C-alpha cells in the first residue's frame, strides 16, 4: 500500500503505455513524462504567484489579491486570460526575429532543466550520467536569451538591464557551479539520482543530508545566495530594478511574450530550488526515518515550496543591493568562501569517520567567516552616518 502510494505516478505511466504496442511504449513513456513536467511545474508557478502576492501583502500590511475566487486563489487564471488577450506590441525599430525568439528560447531552456531533476523515487525523466552538467548547461544557455531580449528591443533600459543581468548571471554562475562541486566530490557522481540515493540513509532517526555537515551547510548557503542572484530575485534584482530600469530586459515586451518571460523567471526559480533540494536537502528522502511511509514525491515538492517561501520572504524583507556591491560581494566574499569550502570538503573526505573532522572542518569555516567579515567591516569604516549634501 505504502509502495503503491509512493510509486503511483510511475504505475500510472506504466498502465497508460500498456495499451500501446510494444514498439511505441518507450516513446510514449517519454511523452507522458514530458506532459507531466510541462503541466505540473506551470501549475506550481500559478500557485506561487498567488502565494507571492499574498505573502508580500501580508509582509507589507495589506491584503493582496482577494477578488477572484475564494481568497483570490483564481487570480492566476484571470491573469492568464488577460495576458493572452492583450495586444502584442513590438516596437517599430525592434529587431523582429530576435525579439520573437528571445522569450521562446528562454522558456525552452528553462524547461529542459527539469528533465534531469528526480522529483521522487524512480521519478526522473532522463536519468543521465552527467545530469548535473546538463542542468548547468541549460542554465547557461538562458543568458543568450536574456541578451537577445535586451538587445533586440532597441531600448536603452532593456540593453542596460540585459547587460546587468548577463554580468550578474556569469559572476554568480561560477559560485553556483563551485558550490555544487563539493557535493560531487563527496558523492563521486554527477548523476542527480545517485546524489539523492547517497543522502537517503539514516543514523537513528536523522537523515544523512549534506546540509547537516559543516561543508554542506556552508555550500548550501553559498548555493542559496548564488541561486537568488542567478534567478534575478530580490535582493539581487538589479537587472529589473523598477526605480532605475523600468523593467530591465523585458521592458518592451507585452501580452503573452511578457507572460512567457514571467513564466521563465519563475520556472528558473523552481528548477534551481529543485536542484538545491536535490543536492543539499536530500531530494525526495524523508526528514526522519519514521516518516518514510509518506510518498517520496510529497517530500520533494514540500521542500520545493519551502524554498519558494524563503525566496518570497527574502523579497519582502531585504533591500536591493547596488551594482558595485553586488559584484564585490560575488568576487570578494562568496567566491573565496566557496573555494575554501571546496578545500574543507576535500579534508572531510580524507579525514575518515569520527568527531575530529567535525571539529576541524567547522573550526576552519567559522574562523574564515569571522576573519573575512571582520576585515571587510574594518575596511568599510562604519560609524555614525554623515550626510554630504542633505544637511
Amino acid at each position, binding site marked *: 500500500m505504502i509502495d503503491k502510494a509512493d510509486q503511483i505516478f510511475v504505475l500510472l505511466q506504466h498502465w497508460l503505455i500498456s495499451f500501446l504496442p510494444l514498439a511505441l511504449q518507450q516513446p510514449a513513456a517519454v511523452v507522458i513524462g514530458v506532459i507531466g513536467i510541462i503541466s505540473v511545474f506551470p501549475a506550481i508557478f500559478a500557485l506561487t504567484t498567488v502565494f507571492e502576492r499574498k505573502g508580500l501583502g501580508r509582509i507589507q500590511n495589506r491584503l493582496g489579491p482577494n477578488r477572484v475566487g475564494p481568497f483570490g486563489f483564481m487570480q492566476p487564471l484571470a491573469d492568464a486570460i488577460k495576458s493572452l488577450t492583450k495586444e502584442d506590441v513590438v516596437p517599430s525599430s525592434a529587431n523582429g526575429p530576435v525579439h520573437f525568439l528571445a522569450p521562446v528560447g528562454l522558456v525552452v531552456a528553462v524547461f529542459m532543466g527539469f528533465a534531469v531533476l528526480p522529483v521522487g523515487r524512480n521519478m526522473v525523466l532522463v536519468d543521465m550520467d*552527467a545530469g548535473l552538467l*546538463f542542468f548547468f*548547461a541549460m542554465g*547557461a544557455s538562458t543568458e*543568450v536569451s536574456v*541578451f537577445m531580449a535586451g538587445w533586440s528591443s532597441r531600448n536603452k533600459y532593456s540593453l542596460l538591464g540585459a547587460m546587468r543581468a*548577463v554580468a550578474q548571471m556569469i559572476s554568480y554562475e561560477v559560485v553556483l557551479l563551485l558550490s555544487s562541486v563539493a557535493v560531487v566530490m563527496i558523492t563521486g557522481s554527477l548523476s542527480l539520482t545517485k546524489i539523492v540515493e547517497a543522502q537517503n540513509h539514516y543514523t537513528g532517526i536523522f537523515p544523512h543530508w549534506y546540509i547537516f555537515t559543516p561543508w554542506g551547510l556552508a555550500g548550501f548557503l553559498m548555493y542559496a545566495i548564488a541561486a537568488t542572484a542567478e534567478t534575478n530575485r530580490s535582493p539581487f534584482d538589479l537587472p529589473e530594478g523598477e526605480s532605475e530600469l523600468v523593467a530591465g530586459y523585458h521592458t518592451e515586451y507585452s501580452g503573452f511574450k511578457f507572460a512567457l518571460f514571467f513564466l521563465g523567471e519563475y520556472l528558473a526559480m523552481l528548477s534551481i530550488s529543485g536542484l538545491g533540494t536535490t543536492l543539499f536537502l536530500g531530494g525526495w528522502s524523508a526528514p526522519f526515518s519514521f516518516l518514510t511511509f509518506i510518498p517520496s514525491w510529497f517530500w520533494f515538492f514540500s521542500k520545493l515550496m519551502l524554498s519558494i517561501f524563503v525566496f518570497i520572504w527574502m523579497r519582502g524583507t531585504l533591500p536591493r543591493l547596488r551594482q558595485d556591491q553586488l559584484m564585490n560581494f560575488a568576487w570578494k566574499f562568496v567566491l573565496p568562501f566557496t573555494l575554501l569550502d571546496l578545500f574543507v570538503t576535500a579534508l572531510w573526505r580524507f579525514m575518515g569517520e569520527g568527531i575530529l573532522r567535525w571539529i576541524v572542518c567547522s573550526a576552519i569555516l567559522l574562523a574564515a567567516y569571522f576573519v573575512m567579515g571582520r576585515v571587510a567591516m574594518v575596511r568599510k569604516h562604519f560609524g555614525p552616518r554623515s550626510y554630504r549634501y542633505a544637511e
Partner: protein
Amino acid sequence: MTVVFYLIAALTVAGALAAVLLKNLVHCALAVTVAFGGLALLFLSLDAQFAGFVQILVYIGAVAILIVFAILLTRGSDVPKDGVFSPTWLTGVAIAAAVFAVIGWAVINSVNAIPQQAAVPHVTVHDIGIALVGPYVLPLEIVALLLTAATVGAVIVAMHEKGGSE
C-alpha cells in the same frame, strides 16, 4: 541515426554560414551560437555526453556571451557603410580552404592509422574524471595555472590606476 545526423549537420552548417554572411554583427554572433549548439548536438548523438554538455556550458554560456559583449563594447552593432566583406576576402577563402583540406586529410587518414575497433567504447563521465586526475593530471594543472595567470593579468589590466592616497 543518419537522418538525425543530416538534420543536425544542416543546422550546424547553416548557422556557420549565417555567421559569415549576415550583415548585422550581433546577428552573426547569434548565428555562431546556433552553430555551437549544433556541434553540441553532434557530440550528443555520438554518445559523448561530457563533451556535448561542456560544449553548451562553455561555448554557448560563456564564449557566445563574450563575443556579444566584445561587439557591443567596442564599435557598436551598426552595419558599416561599405559592407561587411573585407577587400582581401579571396585570401581568406584560400586560407580557410587550406586549413579545411589539412584537417580533412588528417581525419580521413586517421581511419587507416587507428585499427578499427569492434565495438564503440563506452566512456562514462566517471572515466573521464579518473583520467583527468590520474594520467593527465600534469597537463590539467598546467592549464589551470595558465588560466589563473590569465585571470590575474586581466584583473591587473582592468584595475583602476590608483592615486597615492590609497
